[in-house]
């Protein structure tokens, strides 16, 4: 079973994402910010990471940069999930190593499509 780490400071978003991902057969872990997520990845590298942009302690782009420097950190497919809609900013995170980008609000159909595009479903 593939593991997806959901990184978001909103408990509601984590819950919604968990439900969709579990229905798709993922084992789901949660983190409330980038620093917690990085600690999780150092012990267990997940196959997929659903990553918020703006978070306290460590934001999504910073986490992504650090993740990719970790041993095995190139492996997880990283899907940003954010309210950010500026094309230039979306391009920036894709160029810095994100695999996909989901704009909030999203539904199960959009998430499935993005997971497919990232080669995860």
């Amino acid at each position, binding site marked *: 079973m593939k593991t997806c780490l959901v990184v978001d400071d909103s408990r509601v978003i984590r819950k919604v994402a968990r439900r969709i991902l579990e229905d798709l057969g993922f084992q789901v872990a949660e983190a409330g910010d980038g620093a917690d997520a990085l600690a999780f990845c150092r012990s267990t590298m997940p196959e997929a990471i659903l990553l918020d942009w703006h978070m306290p302690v460590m934001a999504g782009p910073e986490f992504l940069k650090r993740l990719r420097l970790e041993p095995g950190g190139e492996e997880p497919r990283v899907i*940003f999930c954010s309210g950010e*809609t*500026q*094309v230039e900013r*979306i*391009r920036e995170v*894709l160029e810095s190593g*994100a695999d*996909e*980008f*989901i*704009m909030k*609000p*999203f539904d199960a*159909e*959009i998430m499935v*499509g*993005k997971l*497919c*595009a990232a080669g995860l479903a």
Partner: protein
Amino acid sequence: MTPRERDYVAGLCATLAGLNVETERGYLLETRLGALARREGYGSVSELARAVRDRGEERLIWAVVEAMAPAQTAFFRDPEVFARIGDELEALAARGTVRVWSAACGSGQEIYSIAMLLEERGVDGVELFASDIAERLLEKARTGLYNPFEAQQGLSARRLVRHFANSDDSFILDPEIRRQVKWRRLNLMDAAPGVGSFDLILCRHVLGSLLPQARDRVIANLSVALRPGGRLVLGVKETLSGASGLVPVPGAPGVFEVPVGVRAAA
């Protein structure tokens, strides 16, 4: 809506566009016509239906029919179909001008998916034509504007940043790509003189919403617009009867072609 109002609307849709509106699925009528009723300033769908019946205003009648017609809403629906189409168009374009028709194009996602694919592959010389029965959807398609929800239906983030720019709260498709498509309002039940002939016609997820006789008529109208060797692309689970003169393409579910040297039967 009363059963009589539902029957009236279903009758209109069947006569004018061959649509099979199932009157027992009242919620579908209420949902699709609800938005139209609000736009036109009616308090309910029943009020709208009565106004259509009593006034017989052509514009309103067609607005009802258009609202009940199926519409494509996703980019790159069935990605494997588009990958194959990309290969075929690339091969055909190397030999001369190629023409593609998205029949029942809705708000343009299907034909724009092909246009994006061609740009990505650097393929020139493909003429893109799209038609729909609904003028309102064609107007939206021409603008190339999609809200964030629409822009995520089937569109990868890489394609979004490659082909779209921000426009207020929406995304607008690259004008170079928009310019490649010619649009026309067409009822597929009618013969379409002047559209010319095509190498590829896409009519996906449309036939299932038509009455059997209307389906045969639409297929006949599309078939005469296919060049010898031309292909008709239906939904991957859709099929045709043998009477169409088209034959299934092995290994390509939902794709049928005019045998080379044969003109499809009208």
